């Protein structure tokens, strides 16, 4: 087993030599760290073994944080542009200004906009590099704007993954219960293999699981991070995962009949009766959905009948209406997904689909139990998981749902060994009981999350309305990150919907939206239209070309964050073990004129006269109670607010000073928290009954505005629907491109880190285009050739090809978001391929349910002649 090394903090360290506990921010994994500081200089970063978040380990990105911190290209002083002309590559003519000048100008503009319409301010930030979201969570609502975009990695966020994980597992994402899982089926995910949420802890757990004998079957166009360590790699045509997953569901339901019937009866809406209109048959008195009580021979409301007596099969008549349990409709629906059909779509042989389905069904060990810490629990040591790769397509929601449906069929959901949400249930801090949450039954008996990272949960949904939010999420109410927030395409849609205002000012925090969304020309046009942009940044990047005032941020080694890992549904280890509550704190003195951004926001609130509002927002966001509530329009430092937050949750003895020294507080989880599903009387949908009606309501608003909703995306039963790129049928456009998150890099940011850049240059994949060897040879290509990729619409990128067996013959894999052109990031400049340049940014390429942008494209490949 992988052992955790002992703590490095020593009581007898020489003067000037100290290890300071904090939290990493080189990605959103937010692992707990120790920073070794000698004579005021940070010289090393390691994982903090006292914390379960990272478990004392740190990845290559984390240890390289020093290079970002001491990079001589960092912005250290406020600057204002002198060149009024804005455009890609046009020098803004930066001049240094004082903080007072900068803040007075920004505050003056804020005041004017707030008096007019606060929604004219938009706020953009990223969770990568800067996960300190709480101050923004107070600043934006305190100011009064609802236009906040906070996607991780720009648009390359797990939009649908979060939403469907919330719907089915009450969490931000899913992963196998590594400690007990015996069979893990991955679709477009690399959980536990150096990427994503809680990556270091997951890596340790996944390694232990593989050593223990857990089999991993990885479905992916590329055999990289997870697949390379898997028992079996299943190469799949880009974007077709739903067809495969639904075929596997079909094998389970209609060929093998291997189902957890009691689970389906008790924990899903499988028994709910569906009438001829496709909607629930409801009780006349209570309006609750009806089920057929086999014992009573009559229909009863779902919350009255005993689950054991609920019919999953049959046809019934209730008050003259013919109806069937929704499970019957699902069973029939799945029949069209034969393995042979799926083979045509996915290229995965039908016999392999049947074999893998049978293995998954067998290893689920339906009916078994196990005792954990004295508690008897269902035992289902098989898990099907997915993440961003699978859901980065136009069919994002159904792709993800189809995979998670596999777990529902065999009862492998939030029990021992199964697919787990990350910590959907938490009993609260032991001493105070604060911050606890758990899933609960909501409308129609379906599960609502106990906590969520956004303020509108995945279920139940609000009613769609004529949009007044820049990202249109008030119309597309299942939408989160929106591609229309900062793009010229957004303007077209705002016009269609007669939006009552237009954005005039943007405050950016660390996001590089010129690179992180798609079609940079459309982003540039939208940025040029804004009257004013202020940006907190570490480097002058591609987006800086459009900024009016740049403010130097201190970075994660200079900031406070009292909640880097909470709520625990975001980036905290799942499964049995400990809860850890860590903080982030400044470990080094500011360089130049850097300031803590949270204090800058509070300063702006004071100068723009909304201190009372930001204080109320902090009270709401942090749920401050009693003596810890911020009062009236008093100005607090962010340190004071952090202290209030910690004392509010942990009691008067454990405020900021305690956490500065200790870094982390840890206590054990209980089986009832980790394996909460049997203890919760809530169901999850296997039949999305409300979706067609939702689609019709949205169409009723969008149709008259000239935007038609393709209703097949709003069906109650999930389907495979091809990506837009599949409509390109020209013979010479014969590769599907896809983007993947590199383990060496975090989105578009870390290419400026000298150590990571060096490692990436040594890696044959990071800065190159991966192509199947045979496919390359057929086209006369050799490893190292420079090739040009061109889409049907003429969008082009160039890069060096790396021929490899480890990719599907039709796929082209491009890592991270490289290809920087900004002079302010000289280490990054010109390295790798700017994948997003291939992507269209329009309605045709987004998921019409939640606005996830399709990240694949179909291209033709030509060798650039001079490349050899």
């Amino acid at each position, binding site marked *: 087993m992988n052992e955790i090394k002992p703590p490095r903090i020593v009581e007898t360290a020489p003067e000037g030599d100290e290890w300071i506990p904090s939290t990493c921010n080189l990605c*959103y994994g937010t692992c707990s760290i120790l920073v070794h500081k000698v004579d005021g200089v940070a010289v090393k970063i390691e994982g903090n073994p006292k914390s379960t978040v990272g478990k004392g380990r740190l990845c290559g990105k984390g240890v390289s944080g020093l290079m970002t911190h001491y990079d001589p290209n960092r912005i250290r002083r406020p600057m204002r542009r002198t060149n009024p002309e804005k455009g890609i590559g046009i020098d803004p003519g930066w001049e240094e200004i004082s903080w007072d000048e900068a803040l007075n100008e920004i505050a003056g503009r804020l005041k004017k906009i707030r008096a007019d319409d*606060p*929604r004219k301010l938009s706020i953009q930030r*990223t969770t990568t590099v800067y*996960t300190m*979201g709480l101050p923004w*969570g107070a600043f*934006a*609502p*305190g100011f*009064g704007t609802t236009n906040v975009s*906070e*996607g*991780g990695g720009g648009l390359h*966020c*797990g939009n649908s993954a979060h939403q469907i994980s919330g719907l089915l597992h009450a969490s*931000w994402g899913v992963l196998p219960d590594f400690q*007990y899982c*015996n*069979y893990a089926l991955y679709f477009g995910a690399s959980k536990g293999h150096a990427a*994503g*949420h809680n990556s270091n802890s997951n890596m340790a757990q996944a390694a232990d699981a593989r050593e*223990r*004998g857990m*089999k991993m079957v990885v479905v992916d166009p590329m055999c990289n991070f997870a697949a390379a360590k898997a*028992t*079996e790699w299943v190469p799949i045509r880009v974007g077709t995962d739903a067809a495969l997953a639904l075929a596997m569901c079909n094998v389970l339901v209609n060929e093998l009949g291997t189902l*957890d*019937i009691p*689970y389906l009866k*008790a924990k899903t809406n499988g028994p709910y009766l569906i009438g001829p209109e496709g909607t629930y048959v409801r009780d006349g008195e209570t309006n609750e959905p009806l089920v057929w009580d086999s014992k009573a021979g009559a229909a009863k409301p779902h919350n*009255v009948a*005993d*689950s054991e007596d609920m019919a999953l099969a049959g046809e019934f008549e209730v008050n003259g209406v013919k109806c069937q349990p929704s499970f019957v409709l699902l069973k029939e629906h799945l029949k069209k997904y034969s393995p042979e059909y799926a083979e045509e779509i996915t290229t995965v042989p039908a016999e392999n689909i049947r074999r893998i389905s049978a*293995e998954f069904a067998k290893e689920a*060990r339906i*009916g*078994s*139990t196990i005792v*954990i810490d004295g508690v*008897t*629990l*269902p035992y289902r040591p098989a898990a099907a998981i997915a993440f961003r790769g699978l859901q980065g397509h136009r069919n994002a929601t159904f792709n993800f749902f189809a995979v998670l449906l596999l777990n529902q069929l065999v*009862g492998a959901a939030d029990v021992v060994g199964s697919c787990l949400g990350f910590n959907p249930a938490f009993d609260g801090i032991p001493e105070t009981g604060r911050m606890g949450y758990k899933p609960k039954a909501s409308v129609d008996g379906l599960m609502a999350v106990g906590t969520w*990272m*956004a*303020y*509108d949960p995945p279920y139940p949904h*609000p009613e769609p309305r004529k949009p007044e939010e820049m990202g249109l999420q008030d119309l597309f109410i299942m939408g*989160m990150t929106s591609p229309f927030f900062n793009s010229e395409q957004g303007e077209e849609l705002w016009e269609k919907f007669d939006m009552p205002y237009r954005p005039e000012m943007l405050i950016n925090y660390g996001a590089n939206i010129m690179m992180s969304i798609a079609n940079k020309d459309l982003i540039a046009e939208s940025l040029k239209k804004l009257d004013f942009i202020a940006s907190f940044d570490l480097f002058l990047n591609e987006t800086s070309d459009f900024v009016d005032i740049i403010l130097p941020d201190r970075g994660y080694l200079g900031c406070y964050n009292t909640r880097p890992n909470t709520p625990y549904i*975001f980036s905290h280890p799942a499964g049995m073990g400990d809860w850890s509550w860590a903080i982030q704190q400044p470990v080094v003195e500011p360089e130049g004129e850097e300031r803590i951004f949270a204090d800058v926001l509070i300063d702006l609130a004071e100068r723009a006269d909304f201190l009372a*509002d930001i204080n*109320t*927002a902090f*009270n*709401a966001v942090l*749920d401050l109670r009693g003596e810890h509530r911020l009062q009236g329009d008093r100005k607090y430092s962010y340190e004071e607010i952090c202290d209030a937050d910690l004392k509010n949750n942990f009691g008067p003895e454990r405020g900021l000073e305690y956490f500065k020294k200790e870094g982390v507080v840890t206590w054990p989880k209980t089986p009832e928290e980790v394996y909460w599903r*049997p*203890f919760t*009387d809530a169901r999850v949908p296997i039949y999305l009954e409300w979706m067609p009606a939702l689609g019709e309501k949205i169409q009723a608003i969008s149709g008259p505005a000239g935007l038609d909703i393709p209703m097949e995306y709003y069906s109650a039963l999930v389907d495979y629907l091809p990506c837009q790129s599949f409509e390109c049928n020209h013979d010479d456009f014969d590769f599907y491109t896809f983007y993947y998150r590199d383990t060496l890099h975090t989105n578009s940011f870390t290419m400026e880190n000298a150590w990571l850049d060096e490692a990436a240059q040594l890696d044959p994949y990071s800065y190159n285009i991966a192509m199947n060897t045979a496919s390359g040879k057929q086209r006369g290509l050799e490893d190292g050739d420079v090739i040009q990729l061109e889409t049907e619409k003429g969008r082009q990128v160039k890069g060096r090809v790396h021929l490899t067996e480890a990719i599907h013959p039709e796929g082209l894999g491009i890592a991270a978001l490289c290809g920087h052109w900004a002079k302010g990031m000289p280490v990054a400049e010109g390295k790798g391929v700017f994948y997003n340049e291939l992507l269209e940014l329009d309605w045709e390429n987004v998921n019409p349910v939640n606005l996830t942008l399709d990240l694949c494209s179909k291209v033709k490949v030509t060798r650039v002649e001079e490349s050899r």
Partner: protein
Amino acid sequence: MGEIPELEHGLEPRLDTDEDRSAVLWYSAGRRAADDAASSTNSQNIAAPEIAVDVLLFGLLSAVTTESPVSLSLAGTATPMDVVAALEDRFGAEPFAQIKDPGVGILPCCRLFVDGEPFEDVDAPISPDGKSATVEMIILKGFEGG
């Protein structure tokens, strides 16, 4: 693929091919909830005199009026929904449309505090003891990605 090796966690899973051992575990939460529902008693509405309610509107809602606090006189059983209805009567429905929803009443993005304590049940009386109350309202937006 070969058989799964013996587990190293030292715990013995229980699988009896003739018996579904986990079924009772799946059914138990629903049965417990049904028992709880059967044993609960309905609370009775008690007529109460009117109460004074001061409403403080923050953030985007502060644009509704320069009046702060907004002083209302409401029935002693007034709920958050009644507070919003009274605000609509005074300032018009439009500013409050963004926080209302026919399904869930008041959207979760609108946070309410009554006398400094968060208040989530939009159908519960804001002042069960019939005393005056201060209500704070603010709209929160935004989310994490990743």
